[in-house]
């Protein structure tokens, strides 16, 4: 069975590792520890695809939040089937770094599905701004308001992206 590589990128401390660990291990920790390089998580999930439960294998690439040289990011994104860009709802400048990350994905992985995770929705309201709507429209991506802390919308985020990778019908997030 083919495994699918998904890269998860975003600024420092937005919750990339927490989202992945919530999805894969169903755990959460308040202790922040910066990711160095890449942490890989292998995960198998059963997803309803066109009405049938199917087993899918995923390799999730948790990539460090520091700005990386373009060449290094190119190596990390090589062969990825899809990407999740994570933003932090508590930050006033949330969309700008998300846009930069999305531009990078568009350049490196043209045509691959992309999802935006607006994380920490348990502690910050989701603003109804034109900026967020523009993100969705510009990159043809889907948006999920997530909380790694409570688990809200986290499995749905990864499953929706997986469905788009496989070409199945997406469930609503």
């Amino acid at each position, binding site marked *: 069975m083919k495994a699918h590589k998904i890269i998860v990128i975003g600024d420092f401390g937005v919750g990339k590792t927490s989202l992945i660990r919530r999805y894969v291990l169903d755990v959460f920790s308040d202790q922040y520890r910066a990711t160095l390089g*890449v942490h890989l998580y292998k995960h198998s999930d059963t997803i309803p695809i066109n009405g049938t439960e199917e087993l899918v294998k995923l390799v999730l690439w948790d990539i460090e939040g520091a700005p990386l040289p373009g060449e290094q990011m190119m190596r990390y994104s090589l062969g990825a089937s899809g990407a999740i860009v994570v933003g932090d709802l508590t930050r006033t400048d949330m969309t700008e770094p998300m846009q930069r990350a999305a531009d990078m994905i568009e350049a490196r992985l043209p045509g691959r599905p992309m999802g935006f995770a607006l994380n920490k929705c348990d502690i910050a309201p989701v603003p109804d701004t034109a900026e967020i709507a523009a993100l969705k429209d510009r990159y043809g991506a889907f948006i999920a308001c997530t909380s790694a802390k409570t688990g809200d919308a986290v499995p749905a985020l990864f499953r929706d992206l997986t469905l788009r990778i496989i070409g199945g019908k997406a469930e609503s997030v």
Partner: protein
Amino acid sequence: MSSVSSFDAHIILEGIRIVAVRVDEDLIVNEVVGDWCDIPVGEDVRDTVPALIGMEEELAQEVPYLQLPFVSLGMQHEQPVAISVQRDTGTGHLWILLRDVSEEASVQERLVHQHNSLAIAHKELSAARDAVLAADQAKTRFLANISHELRTPLNVVIGGASILRKPRKTPLSNEDVQAFSDDIHDCGVLLLQLVDDLIDLSRAETGNLTIYEEWCNPSAIITEIIRLARGLPEAQGVDILYQPNGSEPELFADPRRVKQILLNLLSNAVKVCGPGSRVFIETAIVENGDMTITVRDTGPGMSSEDLTIALEPFGQPNAETRSRGTGLGLAIVARLADLHQAEFNIVTAPGEGLSATTRFPSRRLSSLNG
């Protein structure tokens, strides 16, 4: 790898935390050189090195170029490895090299930690610097205000006294003398109040404002401050209404300071209300047993922006009342309430009057008969 045999490689890599893995075109492990980590021969290398998943096209290249400096399996162990792939140009074999980069990662982690600590320290220092700058600006504003507030009544005193003492051929009329004397007296009273307020505010800011608490009767205090307020010139024609219910508990507080709180609020209320308007003083025991004393007027009220200004020392958003107070009253009231562990709260809106409530905690209350 082009000129190194497998045998040579075994010798070179012995004791070094590097493993070289030779795979076939299906990425099945054919040979493992080095014993640092366990890579099973005969199995798909992607099962133990999942970083290679998705890299199949790159690995199939005649000269693959793949170097991943820091990769670790987050769910299994934290040990990071550097992965690089090379094809032996002589044999055409594909070699995957895995190198333990724990030490580099440890150094890098320390650097990141130090960088983060420095960033936090920088943020804290910036905040402290901003606070110092804000305090300095507040001090400058305060000095500018205090100069103005002192000079205005002093000018009236000096000007009035100069007119009175000036030798003249025709003496001033009795009415003029009375008017100048009144101005001098009123400005003297205002200056005294300003100095008293400044002393209180200064003591409150430095934590030296002391209260002398005793059991006191709120109704008696309110009745007294109403009598004092009715003597204010601005109170002429203003109806001050208070209906004691006779069952108010005693309050453990500094009666002089409670009077100061209520007189400040009441004098503010009568100043903004014109003749024919009404000001209410209401007491209540709320659901958790706390006692509230509210001074409510039917005056013009104020916006939330003006209220913020009014709560600042010397903040007087209403130009019409500016010359009639020190502008320190609400700032002092808030600090006096705080000294009694009381909450001070103002509810107002333009055109809807103003309601100022001081809420004393229940632990400060006792039955009158108790």
